[in-house]
């Protein structure tokens, strides 16, 4: 009687299959990831493997010589995480052959992510592959699959709108600034308020090319602290609002209960810079900028609700692209399975 052929498999759980409380138990934090890799090494009939561990998923991709290997691996994984195997059976993600490839492609392209189209996951898949390669646990099958996965993820992002539009408030604000000014290198950004949201927005502006930044806060020390982190200038709040005409973009996120920028202030600033637009981003609650500022010519005002609405619209647009992205990836997965199957000698894992 001949031996059954090796099998390509995926075993794990993700935010689609497991609630947060169970994902917490499965999370490979601290030294658990290394411990799992050590455990997997001990399986003599596990020819290749790579572990993808993110905040939303733990997935083991592997090539097993025997179909029973996956069952033993599952038992070991449950024991390691002190999870009842019956519970794991209910939340597990267990695919093999082309379905496993299709899943990896969807994960890498951001199609399977909680925030559809996000790009961070591709880096995490690359890291998982690099770690597996460094430890010598990949072979001809997984090498081929992962390398082609990166190409497929890029292809889908280029040929669908899965990654179009920003989906965080700070990134939406930066996108709007680009629509007004084109190049942020030429812009002077004023951060009014030195809180968390101000810091996140400042980071988003800096990452997209903003060079000149000034921070102002009701408590000057806070402004100085934030400014130091971004090599920006710090000024008192009153000085910043009096010199509004010097700035192209003003991001307001103070905790002030009253308006920090009134229409009169904005109008006075525009008289000194009529030909150059002024973009106000009001991230504060209660709002820091008088809504009637928006009626001034060449002045653009977006508040928290406006930005959140745009982010939601972008998410909806990405969701609408899911079908196209999955169809493209299914084609790629089919072709890739055709390439790796001969290397494995077939895949006949019973259900």
């Amino acid at each position: 009687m001949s031996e059954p052929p090796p099998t390509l498999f995926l075993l794990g759980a993700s935010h689609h299959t497991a609630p947060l409380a169970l994902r917490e138990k499965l999370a490979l934090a601290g030294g658990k990831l290394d411990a799992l890799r050590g455990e997997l090494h001990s399986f003599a009939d596990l020819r290749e493997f790579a572990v993808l561990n993110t905040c939303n998923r733990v997935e083991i991709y592997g090539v097993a010589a025997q179909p029973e290997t996956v069952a033993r691996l599952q038992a070991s994984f449950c024991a390691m995480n002190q999870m009842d195997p019956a519970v794991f059976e209910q939340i597990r993600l267990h695919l093999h052959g082309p379905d496993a490839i299709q899943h990896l492609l969807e994960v890498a392209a951001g199609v399977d992510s909680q925030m559809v189209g996000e790009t961070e996951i591709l880096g995490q898949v690359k890291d998982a592959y690099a770690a597996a390669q460094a430890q010598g646990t990949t072979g001809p099958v997984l090498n081929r699959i992962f390398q082609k996965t990166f190409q497929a993820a890029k292809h889908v992002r280029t040929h669908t709108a899965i990654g179009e539009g920003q989906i965080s408030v700070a990134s939406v604000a930066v996108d709007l600034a680009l629509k007004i000014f084109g190049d942020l290198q030429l812009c002077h950004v004023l951060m009014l308020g030195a809180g968390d949201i101000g810091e996140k927005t400042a980071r988003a502006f800096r990452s997209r090319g903003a060079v000149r930044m000034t921070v102002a806060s009701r408590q000057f020390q806070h402004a100085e602290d934030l400014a130091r982190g971004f090599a920006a200038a710090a000024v008192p709040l009153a000085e910043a609002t009096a010199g509004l005409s010097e700035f192209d973009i003003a991001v307001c996120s103070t905790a002030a209960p009253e308006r920090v920028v009134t229409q009169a202030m904005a109008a006075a600033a525009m008289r000194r810079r009529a030909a150059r637009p002024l973009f106000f981003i009001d991230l504060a609650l209660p709002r820091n900028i008088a809504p009637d500022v928006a009626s001034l010519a060449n002045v653009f005002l977006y508040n928290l609700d406006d930005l959140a609405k745009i982010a939601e619209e972008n998410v909806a647009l990405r969701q609408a692209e899911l079908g196209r992205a999955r169809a493209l990836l299914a084609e790629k997965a089919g072709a890739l399975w055709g390439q790796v199957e001969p290397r494995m000698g077939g895949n006949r894992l019973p259900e």
Partner: protein
Amino acid sequence: MTLLGLTDRSWLCLASVCYLAGLLLGTAALLRDRRQPRLTIYVLVAAGFLLQTLGLYLRGLAVKGCPIGNLFEIFQFTAWSAISLYLVVGATFRLSLLGYFTSCLSTVLMLVSLAMPAWDATRHVAAFGGHAWVEFHAALALFSYGVFALLALTSAMYLLQTYSLKHKHLHGLFSFLPSIFELDLISVRLLVAGVVLMTWSLGIGAIHWVEDLSSVDTPKLVTAGVWLAYLVALILRLRGRLVSQRLAWACVALFALALLSLGPVNASRHPVAPAAPASARKP
């Protein structure tokens, strides 16, 4: 006069097809919410430009001069000027959607002029009194109209982008528009270029007008009026008095008025003769 068996009008028709193809391609991309195939549109517009240049060249050979002797030729020459400028501006500034809008304008100007046989049935004789400099002045003036046509397009794009950002409609066509800052920058440069060209043109013309004041007729006064209006717009812009949306509206309105004035201006010119040698008018 024909080339490869095709008359000047046939070459101009082929050029229109290229511009129309660019327009349809851009519209299809917009309807499908996709990025503009900028390179393809640029190539189509460039191909149309070459064909149009050939058509106008043949017409020029037939009439033994610059082909700006009737309304058909004036529209064709204006479209040609706008496109020649787009080919430079589009390649230099890579403004998204400018190729699409240029295709729109060129298609309209070309098709309208081709669809009006009456505009090309006759042409003015001795419109330039046999003076090469006067003919150059007229061609330069029309070329500046082409610059103002492109300025009207960038101004319209500016107004659309401002509307989009003010009213928070950011998807569809609006998502592909260039930034307000870029559009303002290019508009000011086009305004400067148009005014400089027209000033140069009127300067050449003025040398002849002062010699013969009786030659200062309605067309010349209208052209001088157009120049003055654009000059005032430029001065106000440079002094910060006419900016953003008001400048954009002014540029769109001025070009519409300049275009509308071409008909009456053309009608008030010198006596008419058949448009071109018979060979040039064969279908």
